[in-house]
């Protein structure tokens, strides 16, 4: 297990390094970084002072070394808007997003396993067709529009739910529901497909030949085999939740990292954006390792391959 962890960690470091490098090059090589960090109205004196303060007059290699050292210490500079350390701002926003994404993923996985298995149990039955149609719809609707229509109906017209904020369970309903729709739709389709093939595998016949009850066939034998492909997709979807979080947090005023990113883009606060991007990349890195661990837990063949 440790070998697997180590190997996956090493190979996932590459994308992480690419992101770190990418941010550096975007900041330095696409023009004067002062353009990125300073407001558009900055005077030439301000620019010169900024360059000297941030070592931008040094050679590129020195700058890169400094940059790496800063990143390693999670020191991303100061926010232009608040003059606070950018790293702190991001770390403060992080738990809100993590909670939102965590609940969403949990609900999506539980719901998709239930509905996907139900649909796969009798392929092409009415249940299957309805589930397949609705899930393919759900996978292709614009989440921002659903969010706004949700606000219109449930918050503005009916007044059941608040339009924004994080206090109370009611405030979670619309953000989670909006964020849920697309991953849920995709996951239902994946679970269904994987369960259809697992349920037609010879070992299912053997289990039935032993006199196993249908719940035992579905949950004891098929589901764990179907879990592997579903898990892979769930991992990709969890990464994709960052996309949804940007939209949902903006609409519902959720104080998370997605809103922070959009705000810093719109207000040209590069330090915060950079910190947010790098920490998100780090979180994705951790998530990928988690997904690999789950794969190993589910499938003995993965464990063996990892040990070999």
């Amino acid at each position, binding site marked *: 297990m440790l070998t697997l962890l180590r190997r996956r960690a090493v190979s996932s470091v*590459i*994308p992480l390094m690419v*992101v770190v490098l990418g941010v550096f090059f*975007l900041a330095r090589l*696409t023009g004067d970084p002062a353009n*990125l960090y300073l407001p558009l109205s900055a005077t030439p004196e301000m620019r010169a002072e900024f360059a000297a303060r941030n070592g931008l007059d040094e050679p590129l290699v020195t700058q890169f070394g400094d940059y790496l050292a800063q990143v390693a210490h999670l020191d991303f500079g100061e926010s232009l808007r608040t003059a606070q350390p950018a790293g702190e701002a991001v770390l403060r926003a992080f738990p809100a997003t993590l909670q939102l994404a965590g609940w969403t993923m949990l609900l999506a996985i539980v719901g998709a396993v239930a509905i996907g298995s139900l649909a796969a149990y*009798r*392929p092409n*039955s009415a249940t299957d067709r309805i589930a397949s149609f609705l899930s*393919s*719809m759900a*996978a*292709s*609707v*614009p*989440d*921002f*529009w659903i969010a*706004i229509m949700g*606000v*219109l109906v449930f918050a*503005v017209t009916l007044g059941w739910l608040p339009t924004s904020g994080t206090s109370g369970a009611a405030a979670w309903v619309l953000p989670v529901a909006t964020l849920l729709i697309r991953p849920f739709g995709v996951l239902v389709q994946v679970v269904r497909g994987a369960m259809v093939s697992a349920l037609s595998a*010879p*070992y299912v*016949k*053997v*289990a*039935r*030949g*032993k*006199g*196993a*009850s249908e719940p035992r066939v579905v949950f*004891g*034998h098929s589901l*764990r*085999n179907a879990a592997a492909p579903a898990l892979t997709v769930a991992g*990709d979807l969890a*990464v994709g939740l*960052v*996309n949804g979080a*940007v*939209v949902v947090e903006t609409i519902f005023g959720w104080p998370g990292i997605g809103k922070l*990113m*959009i705000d810093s*883009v*719109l207000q*040209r606060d*590069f330090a915060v*954006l950079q910190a947010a*991007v790098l920490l*998100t*990349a780090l979180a*994705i890195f951790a998530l*990928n390792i988690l997904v690999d661990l789950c794969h190993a837990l*589910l*499938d*003995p*063949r993965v464990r*063996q391959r990892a040990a070999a």
Partner: protein
Amino acid sequence: MLDTSEAGGPAVRRRWFALLLRDRFACAAALVLVLVALCAVLGPLLAADLATRQNLRAPDRPPFSLDHGWAFVLGSDSLGRPVAARLLTAAGTTLAVAVPAVLCSLAVGSVWGMWAGYHGGLRENVSLRVADVILSFPSLLLAVVVLYVFSPSAASLVLVLAVARIPVYLRTARAEAAELRGRLFMDAARTFGTGGWAAIRRHVAPSVLPTLLTVAALDFCFVMLAESSLSFLGIGIQPPDVSWGLMVAQGRQELQSAWWIAFFPGLAIVVTTVSATALASWARLTADPGQRWREALGRTGGKRPRRERERSAAGNGTRPSNGAVLAVEDLSVDVHTPAGPVQVVRGVGFTVRSGETLALLGESGCGKSMTAHAVAGLLDPVAEVTGGQVRLDGVNLLAIGPRARRRLAGPHLAMVFQDALSALNPVLTVGTQLAEPFRIHEGMSRRAARARAVELMERVGIPEAGSRADAYPHQFSGGMRQRLLIATAVALRPKVLIADEPTTALDVTVQAQIMDLLAELGGEQRTALVLITHDLGLAAEHADRVAVMYAGAVVETGPVAEVFGKPHHPYTQGLLASVPAEQHRGARLRSIPGGPPDPGAVPAGCAFRTRCPLARERCATHRPALNGTGPGRAAACHFGKDLADA
């Protein structure tokens, strides 16, 4: 479908079109997309002027009123601009981003992927790594960063979205090209000195393209949604240009007073993306013949078991049948195909007594496996028992409900499958799988069942059973896996054991061990063994009696030595003559002329007559019944008696 589309040409296009017309849903989706495309092209020409004309005297007009002309049918926004006209103009902008982005990533990604897949090696590895890196990063985040550095515009949007989606095509194209790389015709092309790009263009591209186009259709949705999201967030399309996403953002400000401003552009996005998804999944089903076949089959499935039970409930007697523990009578099985049901088992009958081994012998495709699965109640959903009885200890298995059947599966009737690797669950330990029969039927505790499982493993000759019980199927050799499978089947000492080609996948020495094990277990427990095989030698050595099957029916039965010594059916004669044996040394081996009939086109009368040296006119009109030709013997041939007397 796939092979014809490779050839291209107008005929194929017409066929696709005809198929499209047959599916109403896909047809509607295609129509919507054509309409959207038309709006995108004509909209900016017709409505651009109207869409930008502000009319501050008429803000927030509600929709569905024609009082102010067609442009105001969907209402107006806060500046008095007509929503309908803006919607048309926005269609142009929206597609002007989505279509070029999809085309760019399709072109670059597919060429790159085919190149990587065709050459393999380092080029493939590096390409895949690049794809991994791009895909491991949320695309919207990538876009946010890039659009921060370069100012947002339609051109930079296209660039960002194209780059973000290249890996999707790269992976697909690479996978397909790498699969083709291993094929023979590619070797041939290389031998003839066809250059890399020429080979890709001529051999790889035509077979990869249909898949890639389906991917592109789905990706179109993704790109459109990404563009809308970015525009909605204010970092995509910038005013005064307008896209659907931007319109939703503008409408959001006035959600309470004028819902229609945000509603209609969102609806336009939904309708477009859902149509594209529907069309893409239709194309995928159409391009994959296997998929289509399954779909067609599913439609006939569903309510089947109940009907079957009702029909055969008539024959629900418990009459004992002369000492046989298993008696199959007139069993028929249909398989549903797109062309309609095909009868693959046509009135099979046989009996087995306790302690006896019956070999069900026949060429592949003669219906012997299907018979076995029907007897065990393990038919695939596409197959259906259409008649006959299967009596186990006098109880008709086809007439009892699934619950009662489950109680018999294991202690009364068990089956050993052909491919032990896929018949064992890869994610459960073998101990768990072997313990299952005890847990299900005897309600044992986990611990007690495990102890029995270890015992069982020892009995089928697995060394170090105690520790190996915690191992997984892939950690065993093929022979050991087959032993495990047999152990599972005999766990509850079944009265009848059906072994479906239990040794086909094994090498000769292991084959002998497995057969000895089966015989040993059968002897101990007086199990009735039905051995399904195509191997005459195996039948001769291990069976007491044999039932020879041809084209879904039993053509001859009898004690194995007698049948092989003096067959009473010309098919059995032919089979035996085609086996190399001592007495044939020096003589030419004879084979039966022709091949077994296709299950969908079995000749009328006697199924074997087209290959039979004895065939007469009668054979074409009368199907011979399985009639007695001697003590304990029967043959389904009009000349069976003659052959017996000769």
